[in-house]
C-alpha cells in the first residue's frame, strides 16, 4: 500500500465521523498533491488559514477584504507549488511566508510600499494622539509597517525581510528602528518626540 493511498483512506475515515487522531500536515499535503483531495485541503485550510489571515491583515493595514483576497491567492500559489514544500520546515510557517509575500506584492502594486533607506520619520508621524498598539501599527506607513510586522511579529530575520522587500538587511534594520520609534511615540506621546 502506497503512503498516498493510506492517506486517502485515513481521510475517508474522518468522513465516517469516527473520532480519529488528527492527520499530520505531511499526510494532508500528500493527499492534496496526489489525489487532489478536497477533504484534505479543507483540513489544511482550517488549520493554517487563521494565522495566515492575521499576517495578511497586519501587512495590508487592517483591511479584512484585502486580507481575504491575499489569503485566497496565497492558497492558490501554495497548492500549485506544493512540490516545493520539502516537509522539513513547518507547513504553517511555509504558508505564512507565501501569504506575507502575496500581501507585500498587493501593497506594492498599489504603490503604497515606499522603502527609502534615507527617509526619516516626519514630525507629523510622531505628533499624533494616543493610540493602542494595534492602531499604532496599522497607522504606520506601509514600508515601516511591513518591516515591523515581519520582524517583530512574524519572526523574519533582516536578511529574509531584505530579500522579500528588495532592500538590504541594513535598510531593514534602519526601517525597524524608525518604525519602533513611531509606534512608541504613539503609544506614549511626548516620550520619543524629536526636537
Amino acid at each position, binding site marked *: 500500500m502506497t503512503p498516498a493511498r493510506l492517506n486517502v483512506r485515513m481521510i475517508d475515515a474522518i468522513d465516517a465521523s469516527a473520532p480519529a487522531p488528527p492527520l499530520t500536515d505531511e499526510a494532508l499535503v500528500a493527499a*492534496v498533491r496526489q489525489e*487532489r483531495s*478536497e477533504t484534505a*485541503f*479543507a483540513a489544511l*485550510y*482550517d488549520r493554517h*488559514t*487563521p494565522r495566515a*489571515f*492575521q499576517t495578511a*491583515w*497586519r501587512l495590508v493595514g*487592517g483591511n*479584512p477584504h484585502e*486580507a*481575504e483576497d491575499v*489569503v*485566497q491567492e496565497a*492558497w*492558490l500559489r501554495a*497548492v*500549485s507549488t506544493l512540490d516545493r514544500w520539502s516537509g522539513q520546515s513547518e507547513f504553517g510557517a511555509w504558508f505564512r511566508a507565501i501569504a506575507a509575500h502575496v500581501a507585500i506584492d498587493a501593497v506594492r502594486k498599489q504603490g503604497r510600499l515606499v522603502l527609502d533607506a534615507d527617509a526619516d520619520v516626519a514630525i507629523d508621524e510622531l505628533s499624533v494622539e494616543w493610540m*493602542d*498598539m*494595534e492602531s499604532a*501599527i496599522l497607522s504606520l506607513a506601509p514600508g515601516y509597517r511591513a518591516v515591523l510586522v515581519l*520582524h*517583530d*511579529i512574524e*519572526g*523574519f*530575520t*533582516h536578511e529574509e525581510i531584505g530579500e522579500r522587500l528588495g532592500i538590504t538587511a541594513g535598510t531593514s*534594520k534602519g526601517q*525597524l*528602528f524608525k518604525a*519602533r*520609534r513611531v509606534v512608541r511615540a504613539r*503609544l506614549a506621546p511626548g516620550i520619543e518626540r524629536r526636537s
Partner: protein
Amino acid sequence: MTDHSFDEWTPEERARLADVGRHRSPRSELKGRTMHALRERGLLGTVPLRRPRRQVAFALAAAIVIFAVGVLAGYSVGLRRHAEGGGAESIASANGGGLAREVRLDSPSTQSSSTNARHVIWF
C-alpha cells in the same frame, strides 16, 4: 529566527504586539471561494471531462466556415455550368445550329443526341 536587535520592546510591549490582529478571522465564505478557485484551476477535486467552452466555440465556428465555403463553391460551380451551358446553346442557335452539327459530325454515330449535346458544351 529573530535577530537580537537594538531598541528592543519590553516584555509587556512584546505581548501587546503579539496580540495585534489575533482576534481577527476571515469570513466563512472565504473557504468555499478558495476551494472553488482551486477547482476551477484543476488543483482540487475531479477534473470535469467536458471540453472548455472556448474549444467548443472554435470548433463550431470552424464547422460553420467550412460549410459556408462548401456551399459557395458548389453554388459558383453550378452557376458556371449553367452559364456555360446557356451560352453554348445560344451560340449554337445563333449559328443556326452549325456548331452543334459540326460536333455531331465528329461524334461516333453510336452515341445518342444527348451525349452529343454534352460534347458541344465542353469543346
